[in-house]
């Protein structure tokens, strides 16, 4: 009990009870009588601290720090692996995209060519048909023209005959009329 009371007194040395403490002239640092006690307790406390640091603190701290370093380097490795994997996948994707676009270009150009060929063929066929139709109709027109020319000639001759027969006795022959007409 007295011990704790004294601790209390030293934590609050301004209290009057402190006056009980030793008094010596000059600097307390030069009081040789206190040296053995200070050295003794310094050795005890510092040895305790040293052992505590040596056996408890440093092994734990160094393993924790090592573990953290390992974890960080592992994580960095993992991240690098994942990164290279991702870039590989990206490369694959790019390759596939390139080949697909090439393929689609081919498809587009081949289908264009096919379409053009089909259109050409269609055009040619139609041209032939149209030409045939044109010649046919030209022929028909020509035929009709000739027919109608002959009919007109005949009608003209008949008209001339009938007119002439009204005024003259001798009716000229068809040949004579056509000669005259021309």
């Amino acid at each position, binding site marked *: 009990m007295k*011990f704790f009371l*004294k*601790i209390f007194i*030293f*934590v*609050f*040395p*301004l209290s009057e009870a*402190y006056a*009980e*403490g*030793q*008094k*010596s002239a000059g*600097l*307390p*640092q030069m*009081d040789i*009588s*206190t*040296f*053995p*006690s*200070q*050295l*003794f*307790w*310094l050795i005890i*406390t*510092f040895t*305790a*601290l*040293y052992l*505590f*640091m*040596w056996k*408890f*603190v*440093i092994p*734990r*701290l*160094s393993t*924790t*720090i090592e*573990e*953290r370093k390992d*974890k960080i380097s592992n994580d960095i490795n993992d991240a690098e692996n994942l990164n290279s994997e991702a870039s590989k996948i990206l490369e694959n994707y790019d390759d596939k995209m390139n080949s697909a676009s090439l393929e689609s270009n081919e498809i587009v150009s081949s289908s264009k060519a096919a379409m053009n060929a089909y259109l050409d063929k269609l055009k040619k066929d139609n041209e032939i048909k149209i030409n045939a139709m044109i010649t046919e109709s030209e022929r028909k027109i020509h035929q009709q023209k000739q027919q109608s020319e002959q009919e007109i000639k005949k009608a003209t001759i008949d008209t001339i005959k009938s007119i002439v027969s009204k005024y003259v006795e001798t009716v000229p022959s068809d040949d004579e009329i056509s000669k005259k007409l021309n």
Partner: protein
Amino acid sequence: MAADNPIDPIHQFEISKIAEMQIAGIDISFTNSSLFMVFAIAATMTLFILGLTKRSIIPNRMQMLSELSYNFIANMLRDQVGDQGRAYFPFIFSLFMFIFFCNFIGLIPYTFTVTSHLIVTFAFAGLIFLAVTIIGFIKNGLGYLRIFYPSGIPIFLAPLIVPIEIISYLSKPISLSVRLCANMLAGHSILKIFAGFIVMLGFLGFAPLIFLVVLYALETLIAALQAYIFTILTCIYLNDALHPDH
């Protein structure tokens, strides 16, 4: 009497017994200094126990804090000493955490600053000096003596250079320990003095109060900085022992 003065700046460095103890007639009482040493290692252990009970790949805040301190010291050791320094990492790490927490706990008003006592810092510096010297001779044999004669120096300068190098080597533990202790002692004394001014000036005390706030920020910086300097110098001395040619 100075001790009766409520703003005696040295008062905070006094060592008082909490529990009396003796071994073979030597007084090794548990004092306020011992108590704050225990506080410092308890704070360190709390930090690491909280940070390391639920370890995960993605750290929480306390784990982050312990990993930050680990990486800070590990990088410092690797930069200064290289891979050969790995064996000394537990000591360097403990040293930094102990001094760091002693300095910071000492900044809290009404506490005791363990590192403001020369014997504590000298114990560390002396231990480091002895260890570094022994390591130097074990690793390099008598070749370790080359550190007293840097390569590329003409032979006629040797009588001048070698004693200077020996003196500078022997003064390393003193400069190392006094640097830390004096920084803590001076800083805390000034803080106490200015805190006293606030009380003495009454209403006008706001002026030293502003100064005290700024000074306190500076002391916070110094607390971290001195722990860092002490540790990095230890690394540099260790490097000298492992590679005396450089």
